[in-house]
């Protein structure tokens, strides 16, 4: 690592187009999305959320990840630099993804969703036969 200082970002609050059924602020988690030959991987920062608080919902090509924050805040606030709230973010998936095989895991407040590409989209070698 080059030892650079990490920059602080304010938590991004959701300015939502639809209404949420639960009350309270919702935040947009930071994500990394990358792909290799076989799959797409999505990593989302959702601190304070444990495995049971994650809800992943796939409908009509829309992938929605939600995280419920668990744990009470002890005591009365003295200084508050960030707000606490649940996380939500929605992505549109192309049909490149094999939706049956999506897997997710949660570790240290980071959600990892692995989206395997469907076989039709994987590059396939075509053998050339000589006549």
């Amino acid at each position, binding site marked *: 690592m080059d030892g650079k200082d990490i920059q602080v970002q304010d938590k991004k609050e959701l300015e939502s187009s639809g209404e949420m059924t639960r009350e309270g602020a919702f935040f947009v988690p930071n*994500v990394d999305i990358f792909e290799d030959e076989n799959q797409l991987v999505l990593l989302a920062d959702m601190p304070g959320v444990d495995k049971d608080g994650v809800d992943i919902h796939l409908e009509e090509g829309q992938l929605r990840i939600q995280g419920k924050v668990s744990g009470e805040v*002890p005591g009365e606030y003295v200084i508050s630099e960030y707000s606490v709230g649940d996380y939500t973010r929605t992505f549109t998936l192309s049909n490149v993804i094999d939706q049956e095989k999506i897997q997710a895991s949660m570790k240290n407040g980071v959600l990892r969703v692995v989206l395997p590409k469907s076989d039709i989209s994987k590059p396939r070698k075509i053998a050339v036969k000589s006549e």
Partner: protein
Amino acid sequence: MPGTRFSNYPDWGVWGPFRGLERLRRAMGSVAAGSPGYSTAGVFPLTNVSEDQDNYYVRAELPGMTADQIDITATVDKVSISGERAISEEGEGVVYHRRERDSGTFSRMIGLPGSVDPDKVEASFGNGMLTIKLPKSEASKPKQITVN
């Protein structure tokens, strides 16, 4: 915030009811005027400090880190948190579509509203949330005063 979107435009280009608001915002000398989402006064990690009768609590969000990557030291009236957040390499031939998660070193000292007993400080880390419990010293605890 509605005015933020126009922050890169010259003054005459800001239309609508937010024109005055945007001018005021820039006049306040916001350092991060061109980069929405980056806190002007904040240092990583953002922390919340709360208290009850007996303790102060300092909480910080550090997703993706493990307990052994974080260094915490406490004195009578300050606690400092430092460490390095590493984003793991994902291997060869990987194409990134979005990269919003930051990595790097951080070091931050937080002044506490009252004095604590540094020997009794406890820290716990779970699900990317760090919670430091700092028991107040006797001098900081609120005292009931009886009225004769």
